């Protein structure tokens, strides 16, 4: 049946339930779109058999009157989530061929809710990147192109680049992403889709290949706010296997969705107005402010004084945690092993890690090793943890006065592949607006706001209090209704 790939997560769930089409028809339609989209390199592994089996189970469940919350919905899974029996690489040569013998909690939750898996989605190596260019399995292309006719290949952002490209190109109705310092929100903004990073601890990290454990958080990416609410409800929940999992009930975010935000106070952090950001970003921000005001929100300027220190804080803490987490790749228990002739154990470690890690991962491991090393720990890591506490305090203070914050998601629209790879710090600046909420563990969503002069999507970010995903989703819905963003990339692939 044609047209199914125009439907998102909730619409497919509802269509299957109503009998408008079968779950198998939906899976077949999306498998076809996935195969047609191979030039975008969004998927590193395709698992049509998984999607079809889940679809057949959904059709049987429907016949038995036994439908589950996501019955009949085929999803893409970022390759950071361990999937039983299906290669999981985290975008790294180090894990090429690795087939976990267990399922991550988040993907298990989605499958238990009736969803199927279309395949595993390409990403920056170990989620370290903002353009998907550090993947060992090739660049992901954005389905978007500039309107200048030049056909320059654009990045979908990162690290969840395959996830973003798959949703924007209608190859999946929804996907999982992970966000350590913007890896859900920045690619969502670059590709004109919606993605939410929930409060740290909402989604279990168990079975998610670790990057920086105090920051890593899974979340959904989809075409609209409602689809994100539906998916997040299935993904979240307490998990005893994750020591930082929040032991709280999962709210019924979808049922409580409401775009009535009259009386809400929305803060505009003045420190997010930074030099060098294109005027179009400011313009779309002003437009977003006008939309929320139109929805009945009260707009208030707020101050988050330590904002300028968030990015350098992140680039101490995240590499420090990564250097520790990635110590596990030693060529012994799983993954690549390179054994030099006549070499001992240390030679094996060093050769394995030299061959298995890409340049950006090595750079971050070395930065992390340096800032944790004897004599430097206090000056770098401990200082960063103190500044992180101040950044979180800034948010606490702001949220005494306002309910939500509205900011740009990223400081530019999508850039061309290769444009920023030469300068690590220029690449890091992509996440200047995303990182503060990560450091404070707060829920934050990116919603499409409009197109820039080159015809590329721009997103705005709504940040909420810890555990107030509902407030974030509701404001995003009010925003979405007013933005009326219905642009999509013309299929050229």
């Amino acid at each position, binding site marked *: 049946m044609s047209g199914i790939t125009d439907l998102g997560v909730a619409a497919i769930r509802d269509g299957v339930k109503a009998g408008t089409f079968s779950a198998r028809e939906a899976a077949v339609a999306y498998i076809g779109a996935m195969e047609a989209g191979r030039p975008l390199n969004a998927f590193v592994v395709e698992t049509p058999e998984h999607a079809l089996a889940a679809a057949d189970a959904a059709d049987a469940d429907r016949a038995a009157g036994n439908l589950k919350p996501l019955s009949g919905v085929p999803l893409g899974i970022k390759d950071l989530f361990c999937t039983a029996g299906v290669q999981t690489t985290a975008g790294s040569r180090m894990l090429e061929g690795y087939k976990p013998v267990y399922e991550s909690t988040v993907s298990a939750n989605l499958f238990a809710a009736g969803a199927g898996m279309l395949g595993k989605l390409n990403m920056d190596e170990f989620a370290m990147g903002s353009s998907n260019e550090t993947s060992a399995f090739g660049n992901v292309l954005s389905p978007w192109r500039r309107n200048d006719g030049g056909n320059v290949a654009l990045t979908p952002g990162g690290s969840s680049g395959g996830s973003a490209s798959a949703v924007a190109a209608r190859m999946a109705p929804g996907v999982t992403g992970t966000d350590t310092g913007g890896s859900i929100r920045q690619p969502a903004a670059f590709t004109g889709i919606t993605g939410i990073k929930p409060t740290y601890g909402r989604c279990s990290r168990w079975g998610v290949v670790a990057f920086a454990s105090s920051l890593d958080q899974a979340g959904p990416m989809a075409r609209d706010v409602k689809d994100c609410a539906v998916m997040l409800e299935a993904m979240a929940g307490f998990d005893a296997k994750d020591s930082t999992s929040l032991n709280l009930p999962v709210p019924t975010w979808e049922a409580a969705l409401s775009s009535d935000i009259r009386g809400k106070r929305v803060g505009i952090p003045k420190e997010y107005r930074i030099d060098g950001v294109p005027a179009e970003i400011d313009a779309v921000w002003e437009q977003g402010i006008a939309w929320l005001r139109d929805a009945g929100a009260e707009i208030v300027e707020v101050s988050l004084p330590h904002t300028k220190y968030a990015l350098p804080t992140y680039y101490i803490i995240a590499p420090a945690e990564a250097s520790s987490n990635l110590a596990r790749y030693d060529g012994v*228990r799983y993954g690549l092993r390179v054994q030099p002739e006549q070499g001992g154990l240390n030679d094996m470690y060093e050769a394995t890690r030299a061959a298995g890690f890409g340049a950006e991962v090595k750079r971050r491991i070395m*930065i992390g090793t340096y800032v944790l090393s004897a004599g430097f720990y206090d000056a770098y890591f401990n200082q960063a943890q103190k500044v992180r506490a101040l950044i979180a305090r800034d948010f606490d203070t702001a949220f005494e006065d306002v309910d939500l914050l509205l900011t740009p998601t990223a400081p530019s629209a999508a850039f061309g592949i290769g444009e920023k790879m030469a300068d690590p710090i220029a690449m890091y600046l992509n996440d200047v607006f995303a990182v503060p909420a990560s450091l404070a563990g707060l829920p934050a969503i990116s919603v499409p706001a409009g197109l820039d002069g080159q015809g590329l999507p721009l997103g705005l970010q709504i940040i909420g209090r810890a555990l107030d995903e509902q407030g974030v989703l509701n404001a995003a819905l009010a925003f979405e209704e007013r933005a009326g963003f219905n642009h999509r990339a013309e299929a050229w692939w």
Partner: protein
Amino acid sequence: MSVDEATVRHVAKLARIAVSDAEVQKLAPELSNILGWVEQLGEVNVDGVAPMTAVIPNTLRLRDDVVTEPDRRDDILANAPVAEHGFFAVPKVIE
């Protein structure tokens, strides 16, 4: 902080990553740039501020000290590059 090539080699050793001379030459200025940039944190007054330990207040749970997993030796070894006799195998450590 300017990172010299000897420091790069030392850090690479600590991180157990073999680096070529060419990589060392490339990494020294790269790491210097990044560390020089993050050093701006030194200007923040953190008097009386405790380092963050938990981003969302949470209590560490204790569980009963009991076996929770069955014997999964074969699963655990399933992805080992080299496994022999039910063990991970590594190069000889003691001559």
